[in-house]
């Protein structure tokens, strides 16, 4: 899904494309690793693999090309739902995503668009 801005420039392009994803991923990963609300879900022993997943998520949330389907989202999170993943965790992730973008100096309007894309995955992530 691509959310188009008023012009024909996509959200992904406005954010800075792949470079923006690369610039954001470490910042975002540090936040989720140190946030008590969600860190246990990100305690994967393979940090490189975990980071790759975060990158894929950010690319999707930034409105970029991605290979996620709703079904993938469901499969990927099914195990976490059985471990207690719920709405409060999705809220926390969207909040941390916003904090990362604010840190990078992204305009509030664009942050809202990113949050909206992340929000659109909520029911798939929570397997509802």
């Amino acid at each position: 899904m691509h959310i188009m801005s008023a012009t024909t420039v996509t959200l992904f392009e406005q954010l800075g494309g792949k470079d923006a994803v690369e610039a954001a991923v470490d910042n975002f990963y540090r936040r989720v690793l140190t946030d008590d609300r969600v860190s246990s879900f990100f305690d994967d022993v393979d940090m490189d693999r975990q980071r790759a997943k975060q990158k894929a998520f950010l690319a999707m949330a930034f409105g970029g090309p991605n290979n996620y389907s709703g079904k993938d989202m469901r499969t990927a999170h099914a195990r976490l739902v059985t471990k207690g993943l719920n709405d409060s965790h999705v809220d926390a992730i969207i909040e941390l995503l916003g904090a990362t973008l604010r840190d990078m100096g992204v305009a509030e309007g664009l942050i809202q668009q990113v949050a909206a894309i992340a929000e659109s995955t909520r029911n798939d992530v929570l397997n509802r």
Partner: protein
Amino acid sequence: MPTVRYESNSYELKDSESVLDALLRNEVQVAHACKAGSCGSCLLRAVQGEVPTQAQAGLKDSWKARGYFLACMCRPEGNLTATVVESDARIKATITALDHLTHDVLRVRLACDAPFEFRPGQYVTLFRDNGLARSYSIASLPEEGEIELHVRRISSGRMSGWLYEEARAGAHVHLQGPSGECFYVPGREDQPMLLIGTGTGLAPLYGIVRDALRSGHRGPIYLFHGAVRPAGLYLNNELKAMAAAHANFTYTPSVLEGDKPGTFEIGPIDRIVTDRFPKLGGWRCFVCGDPAMVLLSKKKLFLAGIAMRDIHATRSCRRPREAAARHVLIELSATKLTRRLRFACADLSRRTPRRDDLHAADEQRVRNFQASPGARGADAE
């Protein structure tokens, strides 16, 4: 079910079984060690059929083009005909020297029969004539002419046992590789560098630090080497001499057990490093050794500000039974004090840990970790 054809016999693959597992189940002799796609011991060549991408991950392009694949990572969807790899994948080498650096670290020097290109810090897989294979990191520089490996003696370890008990200078082995991304890349000469290693995790770091210095690295380079006891601090004099000769190189030995403050630091190495350098943004880092230490350090370094792309690591290869140094404080979660999980791992080469030593959840974490693909790397027994 797909079948694999190997040496004129066909074997059916059971549900989600790898080619290696199917061959071993049928008592076919295939060299193997890590079973996790990292050591490269089980390299085979496909002559017919589709090889899944995962079975070729990390292999040289020229090898991929010739159909080489890792049998342990190969779960084909259709039938596959496989054969042993051609001799060019492995080169013959001769042991030239065996030196005891401590009571349980042996320096093995090898001369290769053919040119062998590598970057100091990468690892090679050593094959004995009987097919036994183990991976070790390279401590030497290419211009030194010989390959230097540091082998820890593991109780009932078959490769280390052979090297300690039977092997003599002049013995022949084969080498395959090199593999691994843990090496110095020239450039960014003023970047501060941090190298952290425990036990024979010093081997790749010894290569990397000398590679950086000879490449003209100008930024400060800090090497931390940790051992259980002072006797395990091998190459101590060589490293002190290097520190004296290079103003930008600092060597800090540490031990878990000891009472001679001044000559080395005492305590878990990850804590010594992060106490000294709480903020590490913009640094480049190498971590090698005990898997739990590597995992914990990677997390701590990342949270201290090092970019993931600047963290390079090699985990020692350990079977679960042989895991973990004595009394190592393992904090599997570095994120929050409240979530710190600590326990003392028993040295299993000395005694079997009591089950009740370990909290059940911690045990599960360790099992998950040991089963993870990255848990086994170089520096096996």
